[in-house]
């Protein structure tokens, strides 16, 4: 029998080198101490409301609903948060926790740069040092966010190893944490990695579904029929799903990045193309070859370009409670442009994956049904890359 700690079914666990064990144990103890502490929660709620701008709006997308001719569509506007994405929810929680633990330095990995920007922001606010690891490939794709992090006083270290993307940034952040534990907190950005990270990040992101639930009950007097969110590691998705898991009539749909298609090697659709494995501290599904070597994945979206998925999603997939569907680059780019034209909202290319699936799903549903799509972030950061995808040669 394997260690039951931090398990979601068979997934999760703490598969990390001995050098990190005391660090995760210290973090787990601190989290247990503060998570139900009234003072901690008061401080966090103040930060979320006064600084990050919560609660975020649940917006009825009337034109999109009319155009697609099916289910009523609501958008959960995490893109309106300070720093432009849901990442700030988790970062404010972890930075506050780190501060209580006496840490003076935050390190983080980032893919699209949104988590890095959020970490740099929280560090600036709380007077902490901040170092962000980012795949070199992503520093090019998301140059604007690199500049934002530096502007906020963080050091950005381009990671050149492996595929020079998100997974390599996670590996490098883990190496850095192992070599400097005493003053440093690793502010992990998704519901992945060793226990207690998947639980901590989920708890800090669960505010999304707590609000959706209250807001939809107020507006419609009932729960939605489906909640859609994009999934890389899966933090905005688990945040959007969490308070609906017990409501069997609410379909929970995670939209994975299929890249150029699930039948190609250029994909990051972990549940749809991966298999069970152990990597980055957790047992879950991973894109890998027959010998367990992690596959070089691909997606147009730097934030979903990761070969694994959080262990709780792997469990929700196993039990059938949530569905995980692949969405290609092309579908996501179409949805990116569609939402801009139809609702005047430019979503992050990550979030556009969820919009794309809603565009397929909504027409198949009846007009008295309700879909909620979490718009996890804003798309300003993606405009140059999407223009290039469409063959326009623009420079930031």
């Amino acid at each position: 029998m394997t260690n039951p700690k931090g398990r979601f079914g068979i997934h999760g666990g703490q598969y990390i080198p001995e050098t990190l064990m005391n660090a995760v144990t210290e973090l787990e103890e601190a989290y247990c101490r503060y998570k139900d502490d009234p003072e901690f929660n008061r401080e966090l709620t103040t930060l979320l409301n006064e600084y990050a701008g919560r609660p975020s709006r649940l917006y009825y997308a009337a034109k999109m609903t009319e155009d697609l001719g099916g289910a009523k569509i609501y958008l959960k506007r995490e893109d309106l948060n300070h720093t432009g994405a849901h990442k700030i929810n988790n970062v404010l929680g972890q930075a506050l926790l780190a501060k209580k633990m006496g840490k003076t330095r935050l390190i983080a990995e980032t893919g699209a740069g949104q988590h890095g920007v959020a970490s740099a922001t929280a560090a600036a606010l709380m007077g902490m040092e901040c170092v962000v690891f980012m795949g070199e490939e992503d520093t090019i794709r998301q140059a604007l966010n690199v500049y934002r992090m530096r502007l906020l006083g963080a050091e950005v270290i381009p990671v050149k190893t492996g595929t020079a993307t998100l997974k390599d940034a996670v590996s490098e952040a883990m190496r850095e944490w192992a070599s400097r534990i005493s003053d440093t907190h690793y502010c992990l950005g998704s519901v992945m990695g060793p226990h207690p990270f998947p639980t901590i990040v989920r708890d800090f992101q669960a505010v999304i579904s707590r609000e959706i639930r209250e807001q939809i009950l107020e507006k419609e007097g009932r729960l939605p029929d489906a909640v859609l969110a994009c999934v890389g590691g899966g933090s905005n998705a688990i945040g959007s799903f969490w308070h609906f898991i017990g409501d069997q009539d609410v379909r929970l749909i995670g939209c994975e990045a299929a890249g150029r298609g699930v039948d190609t090697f250029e994909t990051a659709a972990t549940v749809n193309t991966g298999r069970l494995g152990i990597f980055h501290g957790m047992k879950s599904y991973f894109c890998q070859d027959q010998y367990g070597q992690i596959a070089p994945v691909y997606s147009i979206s730097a934030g979903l370009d990761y070969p694994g998925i959080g262990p709780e999603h792997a469990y929700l997939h196993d039990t059938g409670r949530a569905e995980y569907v692949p969405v290609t680059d092309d579908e996501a780019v179409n949805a990116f442009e569609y939402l801009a034209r139809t609702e005047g909202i430019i979503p992050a290319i990550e979030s556009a994956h969820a919009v794309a699936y809603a565009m397929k799903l909504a027409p198949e549903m009846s007009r008295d049904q309700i879909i909620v799509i979490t718009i996890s972030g804003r798309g300003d950061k993606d405009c140059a890359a999407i223009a290039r995808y469409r063959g326009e040669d623009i420079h930031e």
Partner: protein
Amino acid sequence: MSKIKNAFEKGKALILFLTCGDPDLETTGAAVRAAVENGADLIELGIPFSDPTAEGPVLQAASLRALEGGVTTDRIFDFVKELRRDICVPVLFRTYANVVFSYGADRFLAACGQIGIDGLIVTDLPFEEKDEFQPFCTKYGVDLISTVAPSSGKRAAMIAKEAEGLIELISGSGTEDGSESENALEVIRLIRENTDVPCVVEWNALPASGQAGEIAKICDGVIIGCEAVKLLEQYGAKAPAYIGECVKSLKL
């Protein structure tokens, strides 16, 4: 039960670490033979992993060279089987959990038992998760080797109590204020209190300052890791002769 204790019969053991297939398996074989001829008491063979999260740049590069050379778990099993015709010192595998897990832990350890592997070190398998592979290690008579770090503190006692084969003290934080070696000495003391299983230390984990000499004196052996890999990086297929020389110079 295991043959690993043989490596410590003549005093302190000298252990060589190499990544299999860096840059090819012929070179790995020649390097192992050169090391054993020059007095290496135990060989630790790395099975490369695409994303060695605990390794520094030197060992990351070695894994990459090996994988680019086309080495696989199956080829490594064939290679060790061949190596075992003339190499009699204990041999360990060192790799990452996914390499064992994806092969099938039962199938992986059955193969280890068959080709004469004496122990397995899984870098990302801490004490709390060792039941993932322990039943299969026991079933096929392969020791599951424990690691400790200077940062392990009191954990060292718990780890030592269940240790088998040997215990490896790996490097932890890169602090150079001497606290690292203080911590390492404390960890070794806890190990000694709780087990008779030998404790070996990574040569490059010995701090440049502080009590490096004292740590080397009280442990049961040293692992030459980075040094041999650096020679492979520099000399490629010609490295075995240099590795032999290196082992000879360090043999006490």
